[in-house]
């Protein structure tokens, strides 16, 4: 018996520490979500200190559910996460397969491809929104202006000019606007996280059995069939891992949303929590609990998916 007790005893401090680490913040969030707790209120100064006497029941939850931004935030969270996942996986597979072939300068190209991953999220967002996507000063503005100039030039041509004069002027898109800011966030995060997918998928590709491919060649499989029937199933597991890790990270996106539009028409749950937390800690905590529930639902779906691929 004692040889079981000793290891358990030795594990206890670590387990306790982890439990405290996890349970205390969760417990505090739960507690705050059921009381009135604000940082600043001149009329009701008693609300500025957390106390059970300010009990509000499910009032904070009702308040959050009824706030106009809540549904939008959930939709946006899911839209952004799913879009980024879809794009990074597709791009990741294509790039990984491409650079898995040997070519001169392979090492340099691989390092360059990985580098976006080392840019800080806030810096990434500032670079994209100001230098690339800006409708006037960014690459987008310059490209659209150049395109319009080109068409203008073509209109002066003797015969074909008539045809080109039917073409419209191109309008640059403002990515800070309500309708497009989520797109901007998706683009910049996809750019940043595609290297992560490439890195993991490429490692997996390098461990692919070459004799299987040779057998497939002899069996008459085309390059596409080899990809479809050998490479893609081989990548199933790493794809599941990429999806899971990225989902965890992208559910908590914040910096990009703040920098692109300050949440105008493009809030996600963490951003909504941040907004509430400017003053209303109770509502922020209730939103936090909703975020925990959403993360768990997503996690259950993803774990199922990962589990399924591992079973095969």
């Amino acid at each position, binding site marked *: 018996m004692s040889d079981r007790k000793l290891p358990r005893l030795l594990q206890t401090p670590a387990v306790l520490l982890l439990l405290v680490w996890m349970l205390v913040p969760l417990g505090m969030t739960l507690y705050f979500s059921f009381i009135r707790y604000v940082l600043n209120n001149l009329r009701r100064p008693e609300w500025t200190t957390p106390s059970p006497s300010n009990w509000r029941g499910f009032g904070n939850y009702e308040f959050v559910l009824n706030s106009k931004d809540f549904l939008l935030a959930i939709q946006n969270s899911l839209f952004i996460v799913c879009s980024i996942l879809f794009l990074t996986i597709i791009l990741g597979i294509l790039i990984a397969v491409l650079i898995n072939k040997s070519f001169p300068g392979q090492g340099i190209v691989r390092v360059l491809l990985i580098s976006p991953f080392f840019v800080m999220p806030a810096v990434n967002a500032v670079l994209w929104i100001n230098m690339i996507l800006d409708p006037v000063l960014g690459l987008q503005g310059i490209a659209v202006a150049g395109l319009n100039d080109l068409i203008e030039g073509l209109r002066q041509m003797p015969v074909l000019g008539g045809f080109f004069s039917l073409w419209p002027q191109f309008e640059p898109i403002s990515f800070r606007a309500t309708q497009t800011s989520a797109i901007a966030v998706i683009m910049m995060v996809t750019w940043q996280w595609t290297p992560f997918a490439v890195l993991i998928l490429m490692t997996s590709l390098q461990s692919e059995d070459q004799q299987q491919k040779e*057998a497939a*060649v002899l069996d008459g499989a085309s390059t596409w069939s080899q990809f479809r029937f050998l490479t893609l199933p081989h990548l199933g597991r790493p794809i599941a891992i990429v999806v899971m890790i990225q989902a965890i990270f992208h559910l908590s996106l914040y910096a990009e949303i703040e920098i692109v539009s300050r949440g105008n028409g493009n809030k996600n749950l963490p951003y909504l929590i941040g907004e509430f937390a400017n003053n209303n800690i109770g509502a922020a905590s209730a939103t936090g609990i909703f975020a925990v529930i959403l993360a768990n639902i997503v996690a259950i779906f993803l774990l199922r998916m990962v589990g399924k691929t591992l079973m*095969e």
Partner: protein
Amino acid sequence: MGRIVLDQVSKSFGDVEVIPPLNLTIEDGEFAVFVGPSGCGKSTLLRMIAGLEELTSGSIAIDDQDVTAVPPSKRGLAMVFQSYALYPHMTVRKNIGFPLRMEKMPQAEIDKRVEAAALSLNLTDYLDRKPGQLSGGQRQRVAIGRAIVRDPSAFLFDEPLSNLDAALRVGMRLEISEMHERMKTTMIYVTHDQVEAMTMANKIVVLQAGVIEQIGSPLDLYHKPQNVFVAGFIGSPKMNIFSGPEAEKFGAHTIGIRPEHTDVSMTSGTWIGRVGVAEHLGSDTFIHVHDTGLAGMITVRITGDVSVKHGDTIYLTPQAEQIHKFDAAGMRIE
């Protein structure tokens, strides 16, 4: 049909020539075994026939058609790999049916052929399993099944048994031999194991450093090795080969005598030595004899059980008509 002709085929990797130009003909229905020590180019040669390696020069013809530039899948050959190379995500059924599926054969026909192949290989109960759930021998069978369904003009085997344990290897060896007897299809089989070569082949091609040392039937190679390399490579235990004054007595630079062609006596004989290790197999006894003054160690094989101990003095007498004589260049003297 499956007559394969290699004409002045050579292969270089960069500046390194692994196979100097060689000629070889494998007749239709033959069971040809490429045998040689590792790194002798036998697998490369097989892969060139399969089309997985490009030729540096020369040409390959199958049934009088030049296939040098024909892609692997159009050569009508099927290959069984050392690692089996089964597709891990597909069931046995899908694995065996894969080449037919790639030919866009109707599903009903695929099912029929897969069932037939599975039946002949005792795989019917395993058709819906994945390769990971099979034993080594079963995986090997699946790999063979995948080759059979294509109805190829020749089978290529690349050391197919080297990942199996000894008992299974003997069983699979017999099965492949029987398969050849039944199908009469050309087979080319690569191995480093001379026992596999001797037991399975109609024609053995002994390779060393990319050069064909000798081509012949198993007994040809056993009785008339063309040079010292073949003499030492074919036969188990190895032939005793030595040079020196004793060899010159027989008018040769080097002579070889197989362990089974040496008579043993405890009282008198041509050569005297001291017993090192005696290996008692029951049916045979291998005695390793030291201090003969001929070579480091002479091995003799005696049928049945003989009681000799370490350190005993022993007399050896070679059977004169079984002595192989070689000249200074290592070539056979008749």
